[in-house]
Protein backbone atom coordinates (compact mmCIF):
# COMPACT_ATOMS: atom_id res chain seq x y z
CA UNK A 1 0.00 0.00 0.00
CA UNK A 2 2.24 2.85 -1.21
CA UNK A 3 1.78 6.35 0.21
CA UNK A 4 1.67 8.88 -2.62
CA UNK A 5 0.66 12.50 -3.09
CA UNK A 6 -2.20 13.39 -5.44
CA UNK A 7 -2.56 17.09 -6.27
CA UNK A 8 -0.70 17.95 -3.09
CA UNK A 9 -2.79 15.75 -0.78
CA UNK A 10 -1.51 12.53 0.79
CA UNK A 11 -3.18 9.35 -0.46
CA UNK A 12 -2.67 5.63 0.13
CA UNK A 13 -3.24 3.47 -2.93
CA UNK A 14 -3.43 -0.33 -3.31
CA UNK A 15 -0.25 -2.10 -4.37
CA UNK A 16 -0.05 -2.31 -8.17
CA UNK A 17 -2.32 0.75 -8.59
CA UNK A 18 -1.76 2.47 -11.96
CA UNK A 19 -2.39 6.02 -13.15
CA UNK A 20 -5.51 4.74 -14.94
CA UNK A 21 -6.76 3.18 -11.68
CA UNK A 22 -6.20 6.47 -9.89
CA UNK A 23 -8.13 8.37 -12.59
CA UNK A 24 -11.01 5.88 -12.46
CA UNK A 25 -11.27 6.43 -8.70
CA UNK A 26 -11.06 10.23 -9.05
CA UNK A 27 -13.25 10.84 -12.11
CA UNK A 28 -15.15 7.63 -12.86
CA UNK A 29 -13.17 7.06 -16.05
CA UNK A 30 -9.72 5.50 -16.57
CA UNK A 31 -9.14 7.87 -19.51
CA UNK A 32 -11.12 11.08 -18.92
CA UNK A 33 -11.23 13.65 -21.72
CA UNK A 34 -9.34 16.93 -21.26
CA UNK A 35 -7.07 15.60 -18.51
CA UNK A 36 -3.29 15.45 -18.23
CA UNK A 37 -1.14 13.66 -15.67
CA UNK A 38 2.32 14.47 -14.36
CA UNK A 39 4.23 11.93 -12.31
CA UNK A 40 7.05 13.43 -10.25
CA UNK A 41 7.01 16.48 -12.50
CA UNK A 42 7.08 14.63 -15.82
CA UNK A 43 4.17 14.22 -18.21
CA UNK A 44 2.72 10.71 -18.51
CA UNK A 45 1.37 10.13 -22.02
CA UNK A 46 -2.28 9.11 -22.20
CA UNK A 47 -1.31 5.80 -23.85
CA UNK A 48 0.89 4.97 -20.85
CA UNK A 49 -1.74 5.57 -18.14
CA UNK A 50 -2.86 1.89 -17.89
CA UNK A 51 0.71 0.60 -17.53
CA UNK A 52 2.26 3.28 -15.30
CA UNK A 53 2.31 1.97 -11.72
CA UNK A 54 2.52 4.15 -8.61
CA UNK A 55 5.33 3.70 -6.07
CA UNK A 56 5.99 4.90 -2.55
CA UNK A 57 6.54 8.67 -2.44
CA UNK A 58 5.29 9.39 -5.96
CA UNK A 59 3.88 12.86 -6.60
CA UNK A 60 0.97 12.81 -9.02
CA UNK A 61 -0.64 15.89 -10.55
CA UNK A 62 -3.99 15.44 -12.29
CA UNK A 63 -4.84 18.53 -14.32
CA UNK A 64 -7.73 19.75 -16.43
CA UNK A 65 -9.12 22.82 -18.21
CA UNK A 66 -9.98 25.80 -16.06
CA UNK A 67 -11.01 29.29 -17.05
CA UNK A 68 -7.96 31.39 -17.80
CA UNK A 69 -6.79 34.23 -20.01
Amino acid at each position, binding site marked *: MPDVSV*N*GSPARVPAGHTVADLLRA*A*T*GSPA*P*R*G*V*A*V*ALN*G*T*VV*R*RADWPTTGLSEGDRV*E*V*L*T*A*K*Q*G*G
Partner: protein
Amino acid sequence: MWQLAGQQLGSRLILGTGGAGSPQALERAIVASGTELVTVALRRIDAGGPGGLLDVIERCGVRVLPNTAGCYTATEAVKLAHLAREAFETGWVKLEVIGDERTLLPDAVELLAATEQLVADGFTVLPYTNDDPVLARRLADAGAAAVMPAGAPIGSGLGITNPHHIRLIRQSVEVPVVLDAGIGTASDAALAMELGCDAVLLASAVTRAADPAGMAEAMRYAVAAGRLAYESGRIPKRFYALASTVDEGRPEL
Protein backbone atom coordinates in the same frame (compact mmCIF):
# COMPACT_ATOMS: atom_id res chain seq x y z
CA MET B 1 -9.89 36.33 -42.98
CA TRP B 2 -6.39 36.15 -41.55
CA GLN B 3 -3.91 33.37 -40.93
CA LEU B 4 -2.44 32.25 -37.63
CA ALA B 5 0.09 29.43 -37.85
CA GLY B 6 -1.41 28.26 -41.13
CA GLN B 7 -5.00 28.31 -39.84
CA GLN B 8 -7.57 30.55 -41.50
CA LEU B 9 -9.53 32.57 -38.97
CA GLY B 10 -12.45 34.87 -39.72
CA SER B 11 -12.50 36.70 -36.39
CA ARG B 12 -9.55 38.79 -35.29
CA LEU B 13 -10.67 38.55 -31.67
CA ILE B 14 -9.25 35.86 -29.37
CA LEU B 15 -11.16 35.54 -26.12
CA GLY B 16 -9.66 34.53 -22.80
CA THR B 17 -12.05 32.59 -20.59
CA GLY B 18 -10.60 33.74 -17.25
CA GLY B 19 -12.79 35.73 -14.88
CA ALA B 20 -16.25 34.68 -16.14
CA GLY B 21 -18.86 34.53 -13.39
CA SER B 22 -20.50 31.34 -14.63
CA PRO B 23 -20.28 28.86 -17.52
CA GLN B 24 -23.54 30.30 -18.88
CA ALA B 25 -22.17 33.86 -18.88
CA LEU B 26 -19.01 32.61 -20.56
CA GLU B 27 -20.95 30.79 -23.25
CA ARG B 28 -23.06 33.87 -24.03
CA ALA B 29 -19.90 35.99 -24.22
CA ILE B 30 -18.12 33.55 -26.56
CA VAL B 31 -21.11 33.51 -28.90
CA ALA B 32 -21.56 37.31 -28.82
CA SER B 33 -17.84 37.92 -29.46
CA GLY B 34 -17.82 35.93 -32.70
CA THR B 35 -14.41 34.52 -31.73
CA GLU B 36 -13.08 31.26 -33.12
CA LEU B 37 -10.30 30.76 -30.56
CA VAL B 38 -10.45 30.84 -26.76
CA THR B 39 -7.74 30.42 -24.14
CA VAL B 40 -7.93 28.00 -21.22
CA ALA B 41 -5.64 27.29 -18.28
CA LEU B 42 -4.54 23.92 -16.94
CA ARG B 43 -5.12 23.45 -13.21
CA ARG B 44 -5.64 20.68 -10.66
CA ILE B 45 -8.84 18.76 -11.23
CA ASP B 46 -11.72 19.25 -8.76
CA ALA B 47 -13.13 16.31 -6.87
CA GLY B 48 -15.90 14.94 -9.08
CA GLY B 49 -14.27 15.26 -12.47
CA PRO B 50 -13.10 17.55 -15.24
CA GLY B 51 -16.06 19.97 -15.10
CA GLY B 52 -17.89 21.56 -17.98
CA LEU B 53 -15.53 24.15 -19.48
CA LEU B 54 -14.57 21.97 -22.44
CA ASP B 55 -18.27 21.20 -23.02
CA VAL B 56 -19.01 24.93 -23.24
CA ILE B 57 -16.15 25.39 -25.70
CA GLU B 58 -17.25 22.41 -27.78
CA ARG B 59 -20.85 23.67 -27.93
CA CYS B 60 -19.57 27.04 -29.18
CA GLY B 61 -17.55 25.30 -31.90
CA VAL B 62 -14.36 27.24 -31.15
CA ARG B 63 -10.74 26.12 -30.96
CA VAL B 64 -8.83 25.84 -27.67
CA LEU B 65 -5.62 27.73 -26.99
CA PRO B 66 -4.07 26.49 -23.72
CA ASN B 67 -1.99 28.95 -21.72
CA THR B 68 0.87 28.54 -19.26
CA ALA B 69 -0.47 31.13 -16.82
CA GLY B 70 1.23 31.22 -13.45
CA CYS B 71 4.62 29.93 -14.63
CA TYR B 72 7.70 31.86 -13.50
CA THR B 73 10.42 29.79 -15.18
CA ALA B 74 10.99 28.36 -18.64
CA THR B 75 11.26 24.86 -17.14
CA GLU B 76 7.82 25.11 -15.54
CA ALA B 77 6.21 26.62 -18.64
CA VAL B 78 7.66 23.95 -20.95
CA LYS B 79 6.33 21.18 -18.69
CA LEU B 80 2.91 22.78 -18.49
CA ALA B 81 2.80 23.16 -22.29
CA HIS B 82 3.55 19.46 -22.69
CA LEU B 83 0.76 18.62 -20.23
CA ALA B 84 -1.63 20.90 -22.13
CA ARG B 85 -0.77 19.16 -25.40
CA GLU B 86 -1.64 15.86 -23.75
CA ALA B 87 -4.91 17.15 -22.26
CA PHE B 88 -6.26 19.10 -25.24
CA GLU B 89 -4.57 17.36 -28.17
CA THR B 90 -3.26 20.63 -29.57
CA GLY B 91 0.30 21.77 -30.12
CA TRP B 92 -0.74 25.42 -29.85
CA VAL B 93 0.24 27.23 -26.68
CA LYS B 94 -0.12 30.77 -25.38
CA LEU B 95 3.23 30.94 -23.66
CA GLU B 96 3.26 32.99 -20.48
CA VAL B 97 6.37 33.19 -18.32
CA ILE B 98 5.78 35.80 -15.67
CA GLY B 99 8.62 37.77 -14.10
CA ASP B 100 6.88 39.88 -11.50
CA GLU B 101 3.99 39.19 -9.16
CA ARG B 102 2.54 42.69 -9.05
CA THR B 103 2.61 43.56 -12.74
CA LEU B 104 2.46 40.00 -14.14
CA LEU B 105 4.75 41.26 -16.90
CA PRO B 106 6.78 38.65 -18.81
CA ASP B 107 10.32 37.59 -17.92
CA ALA B 108 12.09 38.18 -21.22
CA VAL B 109 15.00 35.80 -20.56
CA GLU B 110 12.83 32.87 -19.48
CA LEU B 111 10.27 33.59 -22.21
CA LEU B 112 12.86 33.37 -24.98
CA ALA B 113 14.35 30.19 -23.51
CA ALA B 114 10.91 28.55 -23.26
CA THR B 115 10.05 29.62 -26.82
CA GLU B 116 13.24 28.05 -28.18
CA GLN B 117 12.58 24.80 -26.31
CA LEU B 118 8.91 24.51 -27.28
CA VAL B 119 9.61 25.30 -30.94
CA ALA B 120 12.22 22.50 -30.86
CA ASP B 121 9.56 20.23 -29.32
CA GLY B 122 7.23 20.93 -32.26
CA PHE B 123 4.81 23.36 -30.61
CA THR B 124 3.07 26.32 -32.23
CA VAL B 125 4.27 28.95 -29.79
CA LEU B 126 2.33 32.18 -29.23
CA PRO B 127 4.33 34.08 -26.60
CA TYR B 128 2.80 36.76 -24.39
CA THR B 129 5.55 39.37 -24.43
CA ASN B 130 6.47 42.91 -23.42
CA ASP B 131 5.92 45.87 -25.75
CA ASP B 132 9.61 45.59 -26.69
CA PRO B 133 10.26 45.54 -30.46
CA VAL B 134 13.70 43.94 -30.05
CA LEU B 135 12.41 41.11 -27.89
CA ALA B 136 9.54 40.60 -30.33
CA ARG B 137 12.06 40.12 -33.12
CA ARG B 138 14.09 37.70 -31.03
CA LEU B 139 10.96 35.64 -30.34
CA ALA B 140 10.00 35.61 -34.01
CA ASP B 141 13.56 34.62 -34.95
CA ALA B 142 13.31 31.76 -32.43
CA GLY B 143 10.29 30.42 -34.33
CA ALA B 144 7.30 31.90 -32.52
CA ALA B 145 4.18 31.67 -34.72
CA ALA B 146 3.07 35.14 -33.55
CA VAL B 147 4.09 37.68 -30.95
CA MET B 148 1.59 38.90 -28.40
CA PRO B 149 2.70 42.14 -26.72
CA ALA B 150 0.96 43.50 -23.64
CA GLY B 151 -0.85 46.80 -24.08
CA ALA B 152 -0.72 47.17 -20.29
CA PRO B 153 -0.54 44.73 -17.33
CA ILE B 154 -2.98 41.80 -17.37
CA GLY B 155 -6.39 42.73 -15.99
CA SER B 156 -5.45 46.41 -15.54
CA GLY B 157 -7.79 47.76 -18.20
CA LEU B 158 -5.31 50.58 -18.83
CA GLY B 159 -5.46 50.19 -22.60
CA ILE B 160 -2.36 50.59 -24.76
CA THR B 161 0.21 52.50 -22.74
CA ASN B 162 2.87 52.63 -25.46
CA PRO B 163 1.15 52.74 -28.85
CA HIS B 164 4.35 53.70 -30.64
CA HIS B 165 6.09 50.50 -29.53
CA ILE B 166 3.14 48.41 -30.72
CA ARG B 167 3.51 50.04 -34.12
CA LEU B 168 7.27 49.40 -34.05
CA ILE B 169 6.65 45.73 -33.19
CA ARG B 170 4.31 45.43 -36.17
CA GLN B 171 7.18 46.68 -38.34
CA SER B 172 9.90 44.52 -36.78
CA VAL B 173 8.38 41.06 -37.34
CA GLU B 174 6.77 39.16 -40.22
CA VAL B 175 4.58 36.96 -38.01
CA PRO B 176 1.16 38.13 -36.78
CA VAL B 177 1.08 40.59 -33.87
CA VAL B 178 -1.68 40.00 -31.34
CA LEU B 179 -2.27 42.72 -28.76
CA ASP B 180 -2.65 40.77 -25.54
CA ALA B 181 -3.56 42.15 -22.12
CA GLY B 182 -4.50 45.60 -20.88
CA ILE B 183 -7.61 46.17 -22.99
CA GLY B 184 -10.29 47.92 -20.94
CA THR B 185 -12.97 48.88 -23.40
CA ALA B 186 -13.91 48.84 -27.07
CA SER B 187 -11.86 51.90 -28.09
CA ASP B 188 -8.67 50.20 -26.78
CA ALA B 189 -9.32 47.20 -29.05
CA ALA B 190 -10.04 49.47 -32.01
CA LEU B 191 -6.80 51.37 -31.37
CA ALA B 192 -4.81 48.11 -31.31
CA MET B 193 -6.16 47.26 -34.74
CA GLU B 194 -5.59 50.80 -36.07
CA LEU B 195 -1.95 50.48 -34.98
CA GLY B 196 -1.66 47.50 -37.31
CA CYS B 197 -2.11 44.56 -34.96
CA ASP B 198 -3.46 41.45 -36.67
CA ALA B 199 -5.69 40.50 -33.76
CA VAL B 200 -6.56 41.25 -30.14
CA LEU B 201 -6.62 38.84 -27.22
CA LEU B 202 -8.63 39.92 -24.21
CA ALA B 203 -10.38 38.33 -21.24
CA SER B 204 -11.11 40.55 -18.23
CA ALA B 205 -12.51 43.42 -20.30
CA VAL B 206 -15.33 41.10 -21.31
CA THR B 207 -15.62 38.55 -18.52
CA ARG B 208 -15.52 41.15 -15.72
CA ALA B 209 -17.74 43.72 -17.48
CA ALA B 210 -21.16 44.35 -15.93
CA ASP B 211 -22.68 42.76 -19.05
CA PRO B 212 -20.10 40.34 -20.50
CA ALA B 213 -22.14 39.41 -23.58
CA GLY B 214 -22.77 43.10 -24.35
CA MET B 215 -19.07 43.94 -24.03
CA ALA B 216 -18.14 40.88 -26.10
CA GLU B 217 -20.33 42.18 -28.90
CA ALA B 218 -18.77 45.65 -28.54
CA MET B 219 -15.29 44.10 -28.86
CA ARG B 220 -16.36 42.17 -31.95
CA TYR B 221 -17.33 45.42 -33.70
CA ALA B 222 -14.34 47.36 -32.32
CA VAL B 223 -11.85 44.86 -33.69
CA ALA B 224 -13.59 44.72 -37.06
CA ALA B 225 -13.89 48.53 -37.24
CA GLY B 226 -10.28 49.09 -36.20
CA ARG B 227 -8.99 46.68 -38.82
CA LEU B 228 -11.13 48.25 -41.54
CA ALA B 229 -9.88 51.71 -40.56
CA TYR B 230 -6.27 50.48 -40.67
CA GLU B 231 -6.75 49.02 -44.13
CA SER B 232 -8.62 52.08 -45.39
CA GLY B 233 -5.86 54.61 -44.74
CA ARG B 234 -6.63 57.32 -42.19
CA ILE B 235 -6.19 61.00 -43.05
CA PRO B 236 -3.02 62.72 -41.85
CA LYS B 237 -3.32 64.80 -38.69
CA ARG B 238 -3.14 68.58 -39.22
CA PHE B 239 -2.47 71.42 -36.84
CA TYR B 240 -5.11 73.71 -38.38
CA ALA B 241 -8.46 73.09 -39.98
CA LEU B 242 -8.94 72.06 -43.59
CA ALA B 243 -12.43 72.92 -44.83
CA SER B 244 -14.31 70.09 -46.46
CA THR B 245 -16.70 72.50 -48.17
CA VAL B 246 -15.22 74.39 -51.14
CA ASP B 247 -14.97 78.18 -50.85
CA GLU B 248 -15.80 78.65 -54.52
CA GLY B 249 -19.33 79.96 -55.10
CA ARG B 250 -19.73 81.32 -51.58
CA PRO B 251 -22.38 84.09 -51.71
CA GLU B 252 -21.72 87.71 -50.61
CA LEU B 253 -24.30 88.44 -47.96
